């Protein structure tokens, strides 16, 4: 016998009110990040990272531009989900918790936009 109400079953939200979306998003982004991060780290071996022109040349290759544009937002989203979980686990004061969660969202949005802008500027900018 289920103790859940019929409405609760239909909405499928559980006690946390947002279902399993946070947990599921963490897993899906991690699944995407495994090949993306390994591609990125392995790629760095092929170029002289201390040479600005060499790295620019690398970022300008279409496949690398695309993969970086995918990597940056997914990494930021995964980071936001993870740091949110840490705040929710250790910060029990409701006001501080909400403030920290909002700050994390603002910060991750800023970081993601900065990264995307930088990749696009390197990829499409005329002079560097």
């Amino acid at each position: 016998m289920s103790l859940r109400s019929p409405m609760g079953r239909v909405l499928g939200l559980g006690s946390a009110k947002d279902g399993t979306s946070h947990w599921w998003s963490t897993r899906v982004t991690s699944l995407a990040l495994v090949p993306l991060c390994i591609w990125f780290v392995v790629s760095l071996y092929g170029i002289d990272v201390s040479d600005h022109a060499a790295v620019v040349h690398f970022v300008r290759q279409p496949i690398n531009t695309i993969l970086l544009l995918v990597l940056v937002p997914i990494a930021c989203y995964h980071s936001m989900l993870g740091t949110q979980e840490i705040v929710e686990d250790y910060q029990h004061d409701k006001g501080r918790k909400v403030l920290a969660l909002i700050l994390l969202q603002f910060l991750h949005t800023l970081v993601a936009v900065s990264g995307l802008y930088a990749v696009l500027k390197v990829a499409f900018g005329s002079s560097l």
Partner: protein
Amino acid sequence: MSNTGRPLSPHLQVYRFMYTMATSIAHRVTGAVLSLSLILFILWLVALASGPVYYHALVVLLSGPLGTVVLVGLLASFWYHTCAGIRHLFWDSGIGINKAAARLSAYAIVATTIVLTLLSSYWLVMPKVHP
């Protein structure tokens, strides 16, 4: 939250320290380190977009002793979090959730992390120390 007289569930300190606990804590700590490293990664991209002068300044900074420590720590965190994350994905799909398998995979991810960190640190950091 105002009723503080409630009985509390047992917290960390009552449990015997176990390898599964250590791998779990390390996964969270390396995750936090990687969130901070994300800022460095974006800074690297922004420096790249800002031109050779800014980029060179960042390379000089990261080539120094402190920069080397940061990069090696970043690589260790990255490999550990990646290996432990893959372990979690296996667990989520129902594979390897028993004492023997968890012990084996704990050793496996630590060993893999050490090997990959040493390899990647050598190839990625060493050439930059003397450009």
